[in-house]
């Protein structure tokens, strides 16, 4: 199943850093994640960039069992 990585404020809102969700597009995976983690997480996803295996993707991108979906809120590094 596609793996999820939540980083920074997304990790905090989800209450976990990792999850696995069985769905076949980025949108479907994130919809299920919003159900699991609720409103604060949903708000963060709305301003986040989504990477699959390190590449920026759109919500309709298909995902398979070996893909890693990362939820990246606006950054503040350095």
């Amino acid at each position, binding site marked *: 199943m596609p793996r999820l990585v939540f*980083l*920074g404020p997304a990790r*905090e809102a989800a209450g976990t850093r990792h999850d696995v969700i069985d769905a076949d597009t980025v949108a479907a995976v994130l919809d299920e994640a919003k159900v699991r983690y609720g409103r604060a997480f949903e708000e963060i996803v709305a301003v986040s960039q989504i*990477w699959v295996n390190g590449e920026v993707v759109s919500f309709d991108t298909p995902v398979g069992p070996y893909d890693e979906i990362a939820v*990246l*809120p606006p*950054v*503040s*590094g*350095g």
Partner: protein
Amino acid sequence: MASIPPLDWISVAPSELSVGELIAWATRADCGAIVAFSGTVRDSSGSHDEIEALEYETSEELAERSIREIVGVARRRWPALGAVAVHHKTGRVALTETAVVVVVSSPHRQEAFAAAQFCIDTLKESVPMWKRDVWSGGSEWSSDTRDIIKVREG
């Protein structure tokens, strides 16, 4: 005279950073210029005075991959570069300690300055990395945020 290959050293890890050590590492007989940038924790942020520390959180794998892309772009823009080191500390970094270091050596100084500034400017907008302001009263996510901009060719 045998030429020395270009060399990159990229690290995103909780270990302490030593700018002096990275400068020594980047020193080469074919390079007359070394430019180093050290980003240290200062006492005020956008939102708080009396900052005691910052706490950095990331995926080390994604952050290192992103830094590697930045260094790749820098090398294509400034092919004369010798050594390039970009290290970012993760976890807690106390006041005045070093959170991020960029060190670039090159035959002449102009490209070392340009490449070092490019690396840190691009790191700040492209590398997945989040920091929390920590002060005596508590901690919260930094308000100094930007949407991630994927590294592009310059």
